[in-house]
């Protein structure tokens, strides 16, 4: 990956809505070249999506529950972690799925409207997968920081208006 591509990635990771003109001035790369680079990175699936970080806890009608579930798996002949993972991540409730080192194998992040909904997913869908031997479910109580963004940010600009 080139220096230019890296720089563009770092900027849009912070602000995906930045316009080409501003981005061009910031990086000293022409707008045309920026568009070409972005298209290429999208095609390579280096850039997968341009999404917003939303604090849903501030939206009354969109209450939801997030749980992290530790899953232990016995890989069977011909069925490795990747196959088990695929069976899990295809469920639309699954927000994220990671293969982990340590005490368990897969970490599932799941979002639902209620605890019951998540409980049902774990007992009916997750535990019933052949290779899954155990699950431990942790419910998130509060989000302090997500994707590098502090949710209750209190550090405003405290500088005085004119200084030498």
């Amino acid at each position, binding site marked *: 990956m080139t220096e230019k591509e890296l*720089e563009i990635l770092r900027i849009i990771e912070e602000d995906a809505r930045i316009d080409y003109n501003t981005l061009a*001035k910031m990086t000293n790369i022409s707008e045309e070249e920026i568009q070409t680079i972005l298209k290429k990175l999208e095609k390579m699936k280096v850039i997968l999506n341009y999404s917003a970080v939303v604090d849903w806890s501030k939206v009354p009608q969109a209450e939801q529950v997030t749980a992290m579930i530790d899953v232990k798996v016995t890989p069977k002949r011909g069925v490795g972690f990747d196959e088990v993972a695929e069976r899990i991540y295809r469920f639309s409730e699954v927000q994220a799925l990671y293969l982990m080192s340590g005490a368990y194998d897969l970490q599932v992040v799941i979002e639902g409207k209620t605890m019951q909904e998540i409980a049902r997913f774990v007992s009916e869908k997750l535990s019933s997968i052949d290779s899954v031997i155990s699950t431990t479910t942790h419910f998130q109580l509060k989000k302090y920081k997500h994707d590098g963004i502090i949710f209750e940010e209190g550090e405003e600009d405290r500088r005085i208006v004119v200084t030498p």
Partner: protein
Amino acid sequence: MSQVSVKTKNRLSSRIQDIKPSGIRRFFDLASSMDNIISLGVGEPDFTTPWNIREASISSMERGFTAYSANAGVLELRQEITKYMDQRFEVDYNPETEVLVTVGASEAIDIGCRAILDPGDEVIIVEPGFVSYAPLVSMAGGVPVSVGTKIEDDFKVSAEQIRAVLTEKTKALMISFPNNPTGAVMLKEDLQEIATLAEEHDLIVFSDEIYAELSYDHKHVSFAALDGMKERTILISGFSKAFAMTGWRLGFVMAPPDLLAAMLKLHQYSLMCAPTMAQYGALEALKSGMDDVERMTQSYKQRRGFFVESFAEMGLACHMPGGAFYAFPSIKATGLSSEEFAEKLLYEEHVAVVPGDIFGAGGEGHIRCSYATSMENLQEATKRMNRFVSKYL
């Protein structure tokens, strides 16, 4: 005017009465009286001090490091400073005899002047420059002599310009690159001719390198790293700009042992030592703060790119500042003076910039705009400035 003014006047030393109050102060009062302004007038980073540095300082207090430190500063910090300066800028100093931790770089300038100046000694100051240089020279009994740099020269100073104002009384030269307010940098070959001249005329050189880390296109060259210059250089730097630690008031000065011992004498009688908890924060900054410095520098560089280009779109000439976080465009095309421009812009568009004349010779006809503010602010500010400038072009 009150009746007691004559009496009050007599209470003050003539030296202090001769010193004008800072022009920054007047503009600050003006800007503070207004709401909803976007300020490009701030001479400090918009980042808060990185958390690991704050945490280290808090922890030092929790562990009870609340007493005086050695006059010259915590030895471990001086050792880290010398290591850091050697790695970054190839200057070699002894932490025991050639480094002093000061209360901001400003103190370093002050005690440096007081350590070397006798009444009437002249100090050549390259301007536009930091507002404190000339007053600090005067307060130390010296005579400031200014040399103005120009936009045509990218605000660099030449040996020729300095030679033109040399007299028998010239004792020292004061330079600062990357420069506040112009953002100018001097490359090695630019500095070399100044070094030759300093050698020829046996000058002491104050090199204020507080913005050294914020050099965007070339690696910063320290004046003290040039051949033979360490012996005659008072090298000043600090933590404020690179590590976003302005309110900590922590700087340092590096100089040959005889000069440093004299400065230490002044420092120990007037300040005893720099605040201990701030020194422990600085220690953490040097040990593991370089990633943050790089992240912040990269961000300034991007904002510089955006900001400087927008002056061209407004129709104002602006050189590409190689360092610091200031743009210093010429506003001569508008027909307004620096003061008029800044005042009108503040009243009409609620954008605060600093009139260039405040920074001394060569500053009139320019404004200092700091781009150490959010991209959102920069975008809005340039929109407003564009609207303002178009009324005059």
